[in-house]
């Protein structure tokens, strides 16, 4: 592996035919009592099939907002965005993506199994099939055997894994993850990162992953999107070519540190220290 952790300005590349997410000149302004807040401005980005894209940046840089626009939880106020060639709303109605939130957001009155099969229930999939797919999803996150437990009987890391299983249960090709491991301790986080990477390698899903941890972003991604606040914009897109079956030890290699350095430089450049 060379240290040509190839750096491209993706914005200038033509939108590939295999683009899962295609964003052009996207902007989003919130109207508040204190005047407009420019959450996103002039964002261009393409996420291709099989990509693992991390969004990194300081808080308030709009990375979560961008993910929410992709998920149709927020509406863009300008520019174009298409998911699988259709609008975010259509994509959402087609159940094109699974979304993992910062908090597990498991419903406390449902057992783990019934939480994981909740999307299948909403999609009116027959009970037998639901249970089968629920089991498979729980196996993917190594939570088999916990079907009958309730969320509050599980640790924080296990709850977050259950919420990932829930996003996986209906087998959407696109996985949107908003700082899913932000609240977990380092060891659990490493473990879940490793599991997530294996899962991604095995299922060949497309993942969009918001984080504010540089090692996490570099370790997981094929493409790192560095963002800066006020207004939220993309300041750098870094492509990496680490092997798909990389282990945690890769974080000690010079290549890894080089990419991490680049990300840090990008973050520093985009950050104004005037406050």
């Amino acid at each position, binding site marked *: 592996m060379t240290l040509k952790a190839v750096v491209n300005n993706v914005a200038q590349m033509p939108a590939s035919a295999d683009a899962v997410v295609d964003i052009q000149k996207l902007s989003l302004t919130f109207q508040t009592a204190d005047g407009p807040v420019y959450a996103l401005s002039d964002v261009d980005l393409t996420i291709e099939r099989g990509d693992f894209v991390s969004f990194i940046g300081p808080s308030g840089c709009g990375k979560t907002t961008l993910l929410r626009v992709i998920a149709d*939880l927020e509406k863009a106020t300008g520019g174009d965005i298409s998911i699988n060639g259709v609008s975010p709303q259509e994509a959402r109605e087609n159940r094109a*993506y699974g*979304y993992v*939130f910062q908090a597990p957001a498991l*419903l406390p*009155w449902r057992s783990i199994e019934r939480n994981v099969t909740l999307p299948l229930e909403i*999609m009116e999939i027959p009970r037998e099939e639901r249970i089968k797919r629920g089991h498979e999803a729980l196996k993917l996150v190594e939570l088999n055997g916990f079907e009958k437990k*309730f969320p*509050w009987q599980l640790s924080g890391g296990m709850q977050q894994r259950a919420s990932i299983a829930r996003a996986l249960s209906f087998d959407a090709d696109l996985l949107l993850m908003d700082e899913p491991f932000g609240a977990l301790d380092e060891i659990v986080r490493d473990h879940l990162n490793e599991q997530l990477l294996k899962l991604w390698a095995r299922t060949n899903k497309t993942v969009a992953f918001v984080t504010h941890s540089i090692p996490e972003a570099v370790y997981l991604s094929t493409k790192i999107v560095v963002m800066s606040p006020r207004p939220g914009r993309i300041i750098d897109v870094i492509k990496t070519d680490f092997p798909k079956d990389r282990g945690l030890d890769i974080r000690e290699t010079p290549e890894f540190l080089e990419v991490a350095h680049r990300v840090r430089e990008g973050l520093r450049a985009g950050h104004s220290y005037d406050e």
Partner: protein
Amino acid sequence: MTKIKLDKFCLVAAIAALLALIFPLTGIDPDSGKQIAFVSDIPGIAVAMALSVITGAAFTWLGVGRIQYAAIILAVAVFGCWQAVGALYNHGIAGHAATGFWLFILSLWAFVWRGIDVVARYRSLETAKQQSANILVPIAFGIWLLFLWEVIVAGFGVPQVLLPAPSAIGLRFISSTDILAADFHQTFIKAVISGYVIGCGSAFIVAIAVDRVPFLKRGLLPLGNMVSALPIIGVAPIMVMWFGFDWQSKAAVIVIMTFFPMLVNTVTGLNAAGALEKDLMATYASGYWSTLFRLRLPAAMPFVFNALKINSTLALIGAIVAEFFGTPIVGMGFRISTEVGRMNVDMVWAEIALAALAGTAFYGAVAYVERKATSWHPSFRVRRH
């Protein structure tokens, strides 16, 4: 030398029982000018007092650290209570009790207080033991209060019209079960249940409509607030005029009383689901009804049950008060208003006891269903690993 810690309650019990043996048990009979009874004449109470002195003295030193000790002092207290009641009624102390007798009651009080205190603090990992202790505390305390009531009414000779003794109320209750059953059927089964179901049920459905339609939220909620502020005393006669003398008018009063608490609680509950959970349902493209049944109604359940519990007691009050304003010649409220006029206060109290029992059972039943239905809620969670 370590300082010995004396158990103050047992000390009080021992000293009070000792003084009870010395002070006169009764007052002086105005006719004969003599003491009505002496401790020496009543071996039962004498033994009970002596036993209290010994037990009190012993546990003053030993302390009541163990549950077994608490059982012993409670047993002594139960024996003492039994002898005290026996002395009151069988030896003519009723109406003439004096210092000695009340000192003995004080001694019993100290024992019961200390004993229940120990049982209340009892902690066991065995569920059965813990639950029996949990049940024992309110029962023992309730029985003690009834005993105090009985002894004070009998000891001071309080006139029946002012306050009958619990035993008199109990006897009246048992001897008039047929009347009580008819009243219960009229007031509770017919009026309360139907009014409660209609009131809570319609408020629940209206709450869902209010939540769905914004102008109802702005228009109907303030109006509902006004309806709930209507005085029941004013509304009840009008309901009797509208719906007749029978249970329907009482049910109508209950509907008015229970509607608003249910409406407000359900509307609040429907907004209890967090933004995160709503976003989650949106990512699955879950429709209005799907989100209502899978997220918002389950999240609203603790609020709904809160209203159901409040309304369970409101409904009974409403039915009884409404019966004061016209009713067929049966019903708990009717009985209370007529028997008070005939000075049959023990019957009034029997009805009050019936209402208390019915109200408690009703509330308990709703609380039980709540526990089963919202066992996931933090206030009911039990670790089941």
